[in-house]
């Protein structure tokens, strides 16, 4: 899937969790510092990422997944899982 398409899907997911305008989210936006995601929103968001991209985030993946900081990190994670 093209990088821009992944980014758009991820941005749409993040808009469910943050009170911001779409243009305020870019690849380097900090999920916690800029978007204010709390720990449960973060996990819930990952659940939406799983469903949207039809991937499965295993317990082993969680270690890496919970240290993601930006949409860019999520894009790279999804690309790795989809490949």
């Amino acid at each position, binding site marked *: 899937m093209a990088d821009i398409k992944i980014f758009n899907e991820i941005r749409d997911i993040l808009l*469910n969790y943050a009170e911001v305008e779409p243009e305020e989210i870019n690849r380097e936006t900090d999920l916690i510092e800029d978007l204010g995601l709390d720990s449960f929103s973060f996990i*819930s968001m990952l*659940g939406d990422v*799983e469903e949207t991209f039809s991937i499965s985030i*295993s*317990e082993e993946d969680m270690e890496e997944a919970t240290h993601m900081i930006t949409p860019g990190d999520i894009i790279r994670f999804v690309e790795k899982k989809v490949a």
Partner: protein
Amino acid sequence: MKMQEKIDRGIRDFRTFLNAIADKYGDTPAVREMHGKEIVDRTYNQLKRDADAVSRFFLAQENAEPMHVAAIGATSYQYIAAYYGTVNAAQVIVPTEAQLSTESQCDLFHMADVNGLFFDKHFEERLPEIHEKCPDIRLFICLTEGEESHDMGDIHIYSLSEIEKEYAVGDDITVPLEHDTMSTILFTSGTTSAQPKAVMLSHGGIIDNIFSGELAERDSTNYVKLIALPIHHALSFNTDIGMGFRNGDTVFVNDSMLHLARNFKIAKPYTAILVPMVFENFYHKIMKAHEMHPEMDLKTMAREAFGGEIEVFYCGGAHLRAEIADAFESWGMPVFEGYGMTECSPRVAANMPGRFRRDSIGKVVDNAEVRIKDSELQVKSPSVMLGYYKNPEATKAAFTEDGWLRSGDIGYIDEDGYIFLQGRIKNLIILSNGENVSPEEIETKLYDCTFIKECLVYEEDGKITAEIFPDTEYAEMHEVSDVEKEISAAVKAANKTMPTTKSVRNVKFRYEPFERTATNKIKRARKAA
């Protein structure tokens, strides 16, 4: 199962409890799980059979002393069977938080004299390090279903699935269990301190707590409850699962917080115990979805988000904001807040249908007494802990001279017996996910940074905040031009060594020392409830 039946059946420990619920609920599904996309049920009879097999396994080890068996894993049927099997053979289970680092796990293992370990398969790669740091652990049992026993270097790994088959047939378990026989060690920050403490809970204390309230009348339809709290917490295993089993419910295991929203729709539960953070998140999502589809009925949308069958929610761990509680009530899904302490197995007070008061934590549960002494809420109950393991000083400090458990919370009781909290004596930050964070624990970590002269950690606007007085003289001596940048980097590094929920999210700098008490401690502001 009502209190009278508990008495009639002679239920006084985990084993008599399991025998009674298997006898009464038999082939009703006790635990329901998702294995991939498949729903898998295990009945009460099956749970007893598997737990008995685990008990036989432990008794076959012929240990002179009860083992202390740690458990690291997600909530699962296997974890539940392992827990019952362990304690029913008079061994002690020591659940720990799965997300901790190996080093932190080992600290807890040493604190509780752990010599056995249940673990989920994906944890296996950490065993060599655990084996080296904790050489007393001689029994390693993999919880994950379908795994085979094997060796890993000089570590032999048992498979719980194989134990359940191999020991399926055998004598009834008759090893003596008393009310005060220790069943469980749980870790908590307690009322104060930088170090967690090991809380010893007894068979009778936990079982009494499971029966610490009469149930409303129900019809015979099978009820499903969703269990989503972390299983190493007393509120999960004792209250959520324990009381569900008492009722003959089917407990639907939420396999991961990633899947909570999906699992509500699959499980269609009548209830769940959640923490305020989860209620807040669902509330925002539902309101946002309704904004995008204003033509749809809000109440219907909200109810469908939880599967459509919710009769009541329970909330624990922290206070739920009135705005959120009101919204859920308007959607026909009232949320009842309760209060407890790990040291009390854990339920102390609860609101419930027909017995609730706004902003209170409810009335004291049956079989317990509360009082307010010097403004502090204190408890007397058969569910109170046996003490802190190998910590007589802390145990003494947790009780008054006349034997009441100190909660560390300030409050009052109104004329109808409803309890209201007003603040905390203890220095704990309570997050909206129910987690208790000790500021001293975080401050100790921050003081590793030599550029920090003084620091104070507290909660501000829902975030863990560190207020720091830099050592500018030291920074100058070491030719550090931007001490704030140096300290901010150190805070980020400290955050990496702790679970994300304990991360310092906000750093404030000050350039004068903190005010100190008569005993030269930094003065902390007393936090309102």
